[in-house]
């Protein structure tokens, strides 16, 4: 197979990374497709920025027991929530393995846990590390981990689910969103699943997962046509045998990597079969996605809408702009992609939903802020142009836009001016 060349390298980088860094494109253009994909898979940096201060669970659990301390918990979690948001945003800006971060975000969106509901930054931090560690690993393992993840036990009320009163929140979302999806089960299956997860909780002293046999309903359950003395693990294993689980993930991959329209069912079946047959090996699935005709098809270039993270952090990773007096983590919140702050357990809907009249204003004002400044390159000593690679206008276009611009480009010369025109064009909103 031939080398990628600039355009394909640029496509691969912008779809798998955060932004499209010039150096990576230049490196990839001389690799074959498979070499470049292997590079993405092998580049996994796990070291994270220094941790903010976070209150440990034993301290918080004491406050939780006290109704009058509710405000205090709110205050602590708000401060710590902001800190942990900044922590991840910093890493998203600096990481040398953007593909791994992108996939960590992907799973963070599939298995959301918000600071607002959990009020426990220290647990969200641990969940984040767990998702990153498994982001290119095995989905089955990740699902088992998530089910007993303390942040998830808080987020979907699993920790209060008992034999007498099974709480349905986790079981419902496990079926509806995390695995087989609506229409594949009856309410009764959901309730039986909820029984199987009773007794799963959090150790008061160390904040780790703890199984409490006294609170577990050990009776016989009927779940998706199977009968047995099921535990939570059994429910997850039954769900992993169900073909719809792999389809759910395959469909999300389509929306992440191909386009915003409804996926082609034949492609989804094909990907889902590969995924299941591999025992849920995420790299195997990704390899198929990134090698598919759909991924490379010309009509799918520019057919995805950039997420707020891709738009803002992506720009900062691509171009030598600096962000002035703006709290990036906060801006991601108001643009609709606050990390650890999903609008609901469904996560960010993405696609078309990234764009509303409200979000266009915010996205635009963010890009305007970034690109503001003196455009006279002689007066501002070259401005950002002096820090950019030496490229022709055509190359600049190819680099920054996946489709032709919609607006008139400036007639005055200047690389900084042209760069700004590209970044502010609606075409820059798609990738």
């Amino acid at each position, binding site marked *: 197979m031939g080398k990628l060349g600039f355009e394909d390298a640029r496509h691969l980088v912008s779809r798998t990374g955060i932004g499209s860094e010039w150096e990576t494109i230049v490196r990839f253009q001389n690799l074959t497709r498979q070499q470049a994909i292997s590079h993405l898979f092998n580049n996994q940096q796990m070291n994270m920025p220094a941790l903010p201060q976070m209150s440990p669970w034993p301290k918080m659990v004491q406050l939780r027991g006290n*109704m009058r301390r509710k405000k205090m918990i709110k205050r602590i979690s708000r401060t710590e929530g902001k800190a942990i948001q900044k922590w991840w945003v910093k890493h998203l800006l600096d990481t040398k393995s953007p593909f791994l971060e992108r996939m960590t975000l992907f799973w963070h969106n599939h298995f959301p846990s918000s600071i607002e509901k959990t009020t426990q930054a220290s647990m969200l931090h641990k969940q984040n590390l767990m998702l990153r560690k498994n982001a290119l690993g095995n989905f089955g393992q990740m699902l088992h981990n998530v089910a007993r993840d303390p942040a998830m036990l808080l987020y979907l*009320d699993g920790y*209060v689910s*008992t034999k*007498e*009163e099974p*709480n*349905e*929140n986790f079981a*419902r979302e496990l079926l509806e969103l995390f695995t087989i999806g*609506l229409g594949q089960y009856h*309410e009764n299956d959901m*309730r039986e699943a909820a029984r199987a997860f009773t007794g799963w909780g959090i150790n008061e002293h160390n904040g780790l997962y703890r199984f409490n046999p006294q609170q577990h309903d050990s009776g016989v359950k009927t779940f998706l046509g199977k009968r047995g003395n099921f535990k939570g693990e059994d429910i997850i294993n039954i769900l992993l045998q169900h073909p719809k689980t792999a389809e759910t993930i395959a469909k999300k991959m389509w929306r992440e990597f191909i386009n*915003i329209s409804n996926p082609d069912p034949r492609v989804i079946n094909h990907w889902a079969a590969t995924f299941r047959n591999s025992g849920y090996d995420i790299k195997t699935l990704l390899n198929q996605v990134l090698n598919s005709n759909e991924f490379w098809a010309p*009509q*799918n270039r*520019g*057919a*995805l*809408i950039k997420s707020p993270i891709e738009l803002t952090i992506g720009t900062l990773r691509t171009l030598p702009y600096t962000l002035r007096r703006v709290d990036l983590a906060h801006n991601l*919140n*108001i643009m*609709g992609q606050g990390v650890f702050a999903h*609008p*609901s*357990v*469904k996560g960010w809907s993405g696609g*078309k939903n990234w764009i*509303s*009249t*409200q*979000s*266009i*204003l*915010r996205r*635009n*004002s963010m890009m305007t802020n970034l690109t503001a400044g003196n455009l006279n390159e002689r007066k501002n000593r070259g401005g950002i142009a*002096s820090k950019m690679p*030496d*490229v*022709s*206008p*055509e190359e600049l*276009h190819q680099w920054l836009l996946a*489709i*032709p*611009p*919609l*607006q*008139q*480009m400036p*007639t005055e*010369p*200047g*690389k900084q001016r*042209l760069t700004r025109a590209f970044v502010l064009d*609606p*075409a820059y*909103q*798609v990738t």
Partner: protein
Amino acid sequence: MTTKMDRRDFLKYAGLLSASASVPLLTPELLFAANGRRPDKIVVLVELKGGNDGFNTLVPFADELYYQYRPNIGIQQRHLLPLNDQVGMHPRMKALMPVWNSGKMAWIQGVGYPNPVLSHFRSMDIWNSASNANQVIEAGWLSRVLPNFKQGLHGVALNKGQAKLGPLYSSNMNAVTMQNPKTFLSQIKRINDVSPSRLNPAIAHVSQTQHQLFGVGTQLANKMGNRPARSGVRFSKGVLGHSLESVAEMILSGIDSPVYKVTQDGFDTHSGQRGAQDNALFQVAGGLASFQQAMQKAGLWNNVIVVTYSEFGRRVKENRGAGTDHGTASAHMVMGGRVRGGIYGRHPNLAQLDQNGNVQHTTDFRAIYGTLAQRWWNQPNPWKGAPLIPFV
């Protein structure tokens, strides 16, 4: 560092681009969106997000089963705001008692739909689109009424963060989302108009939305840019109070939108319901009371109807966490100067629960939509199956 970009290169390039980029057109819908006058029939939709527990909102104190099912979170009769000898309002909704007493508030009991779905997302889609439980319709229900009712702007959805169009979502409607008009106006100055592109669905959506935004922005700038109308009423500081204040100001400024949608969060009360729901209802009551006063003061109370909705109600039986799980039918409120106050619909039978422990609905939610279409906007009712409710 040297640069390859000289002037000649650049001009060649700019010339090349001008073929693909074109000057925006002043399309008819843009023209209407930019002008237009205030409709005399406005609906304010209040989304109670998370699934509001109707039984602890309009409390059926005369129903013994209610207290049997809710030993901990049931609200005692002596704490309620009695509306008749059967039901009373949640005590934290006191701010709305003057509206009830003036006969301008209606409650509709048992609102739901057949074959209820207990998923937040799916059930909200059903409410937004007025579909059947087993049917997927993408367009919002208002798209079957409003394009025929008027041209120009069809709706404004307000929320902190990301507002959702919900019932206003449709490609044949002109609807926008915003946090508030002030922020909207301060950011709109930097937006250029673009002609919608059809290259692919992604850029089509981006460019179409930006085009729409430009039209609405022009109207807002004309009518609210320099001196926005103030309501002269104090609104609470919460998100809903803030949104409703913005709605009042837009109506007073003469914006041509027939629908405003606002949202109160916090109704998914799986645990610790009393604190959470009490507060959310307090926000709703406070915000709506201020809104009512603002409209009354401006002489516009007869021109608006406020309607609440939510994806579902909650289970009759409380759970161990002093909360309630996803349910079915719920009670909803309608108020406005032309509203015929009272209690409509039947209280669901708490003795007859389905296998999930949920009640059977007694009023189809599309009856409310149909009533608004036919009796408020004088439009054909697209939902003939559900009998109208004479609340207006």
